[in-house]
């Protein structure tokens, strides 16, 4: 088994420090090259065995729990689509009450896991409630930028111009009209102890953030926004998941940063990217993806302006809270 609870957690510096234990077993039914399954595997490795996972309905849920099999080596519950944060609140409260009353002596930490649909859209209310009430729960958003499980429909997390089956490329409307919702700002507005972005392309950064987040749970909720590409949904080759995720960071589309007890911090390599010249050209990220194949010059320019605008916002955050 993994680390004994109570043991001091050593930061993960290289891949050799990554625990060998697997808590997200083989045999799940995810697609080849699934980004979210990589995220879950590494999150659980970092967290160790003393956790309880609450999973919203979605890709990971349907592919990992097909009765009579399960991929989960830790306690797991799925209830519905929009309520992972509420279910997690109940579990956290139960552990608190049972421990206090001497009925149980549980040390398990609670991790809620939901996709972009289950977080940006249908789960937003329950998430906000959980954050406002201050439950010691780590909420992980694995973001594959659309409702992939039902067959690639747009969500509040889908980027502007992206093709999905409900934001098709037509002669009058070309892909998603609206921009991606700034979920991190919404979460940070709840003034929780710890929130961070992470990517499956940077597993060491991801795993260290998981541990930092779990350590913050004594003070209140923590939130991780994990970027996790979906080959069939993004129209990329199965072998390109990590490469595309890395390009998202390198082009500045998905910056890695932390909101740590009121301090804002950009993480490598995004800490270099305030200077636009250090970012790779946006086209490197867009070109390999079929969902952006229809983009014209001016649409790419508009997208670039959006990325620049977000960086401008982050730069101001850095000045104010860095």
């Amino acid at each position: 088994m993994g680390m004994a609870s109570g043991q001091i957690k050593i930061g993960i510096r290289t891949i050799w420090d990554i625990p060998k234990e697997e808590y997200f077993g083989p045999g799940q039914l995810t697609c080849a090259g699934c980004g979210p399954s990589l995220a879950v595997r590494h999150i659980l490795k970092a967290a160790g065995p003393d956790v309880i996972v609450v999973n919203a309905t979605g890709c990971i849920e349907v592919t990992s729990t097909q009765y009579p099999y399960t991929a989960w080596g830790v306690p797991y519950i799925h209830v519905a689509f929009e309520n992972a944060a509420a279910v997690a609140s109940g579990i956290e409260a139960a552990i608190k009450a049972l421990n206090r009353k001497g009925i149980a002596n549980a040390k398990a930490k609670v991790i809620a896991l939901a996709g972009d649909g289950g977080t940006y859209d249908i789960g937003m209310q329950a998430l906000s409630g959980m954050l406002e009430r201050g439950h010691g729960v780590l909420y992980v958003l694995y973001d594959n930028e659309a409702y992939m499980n039902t067959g690639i429909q747009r969500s509040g997390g889908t980027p502007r111009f992206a093709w999905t089956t409900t934001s098709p490329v037509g002669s009058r409307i070309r892909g998603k009209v609206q921009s991606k919702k700034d979920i991190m700002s919404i979460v940070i507005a709840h003034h929780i102890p710890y929130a961070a972005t992470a990517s499956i392309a940077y597993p060491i950064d991801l795993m260290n953030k998981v541990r930092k987040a779990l350590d913050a749970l004594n003070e209140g909720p923590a939130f991780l926004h994990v970027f996790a590409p979906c080959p069939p949904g993004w129209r990329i080759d199965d072998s390109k998941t990590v490469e595309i995720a890395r390009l998202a960071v390198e082009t500045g589309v998905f910056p890695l940063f932390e909101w740590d007890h009121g301090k804002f911090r950009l993480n490598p390599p995004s800490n270099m990217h305030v200077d636009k010249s250090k970012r790779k050209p946006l086209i490197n990220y867009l070109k390999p993806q079929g969902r952006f194949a229809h983009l014209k010059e001016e649409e790419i320019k508009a997208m670039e302006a959006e990325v620049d605008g977000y960086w401008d916002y982050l730069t101001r955050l850095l000045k104010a809270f860095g």
Partner: protein
Amino acid sequence: MTQVIEKERERSVVVGKVGLTTNYAIAHAVKDVDVDVVAAYPITPQTTIIEKLAEYVANGELDAEFIPVESEHSALSAAVGASAAGARVFTATSAQGLELMHEILHIASGLRLPIVMAVPGRALSAPISIHGDYQDLMNVRDTGWVIYIASTAQEAYDTVIEAFRVAEDPRVLLPVIVSYDGFLMSHTTEPVEVYDTKAVREFTPRRHNTRPLLNPERPVTMGALATPDWYYEIKYQAINALRASRGVIDEVDSEFNRRFGRAYGAVEGFMLDDADYILVTYGGAATWNALEAAKEARGRGLRAGVLRIRLFRPFPSNDLVKRLADAKAVAVVDRAIAPGSPVEGPVFKDVYIALREAGVDKPIVSVIHGISQRTMYIRDFYELYYKLRDIASTGNVPRESLYMGLR
């Protein structure tokens, strides 16, 4: 009203007779059984239950986590999580709140989680009405919960205590609703005998770890995906458990009687031994007003009786048939409507099927009354008894629901 077996009753268990609304009686019972987690959201007429529970927690009278959730959907979701983690859990709601929970009602019973919920019944929007009827409850009757409908504050208090025993019994493991009249009971103060806390806790021992729980020492996966190969069989187990819960419900009721000197049964009959004309009711106001009417009718020579349904799910068909078999005509008073049904009284349909299935063929009439707390006058029920007499003598049985009190 109740079947007190004085000789077996340990009087010492009663610590006092206090004036409580049914909502406060519910909160008192929740405190007495030492609930661990309360997750709830305010809605009229349920609110005073959770206000009282918040007060108990704030004063240290109840050692529980009170989760003031942001919606009823989250209330039941948090209750599901807490129950899956091994806590004793309570929630309460009414009307729109119960409708918002609807999705999770099915999941709570499907996951076999012993949650107890109080539901003071209320009319559903639109038009919006905060007043009492049972439309909300009838809309959730097919969600696989055990459902009681209480008729007094005392019964509500007692039933919550029984409900935890039934829900957590390893032979049952199903959630339980305790319902009663919104406002007419929820906000009406009645004398209630409350019991010694120790006695209540002895009666409701914890069954922590007698069911699969979310525990890292023994990881389980709950809420798995079932393909059509498995779904039907798993669902059927819950259906069967609800059916079989009746044995445990009766067992708990008689044990409750031995301990606290009260038993209620699945149905409660009044003046039925020689009754020709019987009103079948549920809840407080309909039952007690029908009983007053029955007494008046008997004063004038009409053999009237009342049969109250206390256990709504699983439906006590045999008990009803036994008590109604010798009547000349029966009316079922529904405080809810099943629009577009062949006959529009929801409980009428259950009673009708129970009687016909048992081969009992007698005039049975569907009556709708008390919608959004439209006053159910004693004289309405009095007239209904005479109507039943006419129906029995002429054989002209109405084929549609009679809407009483409708202007």
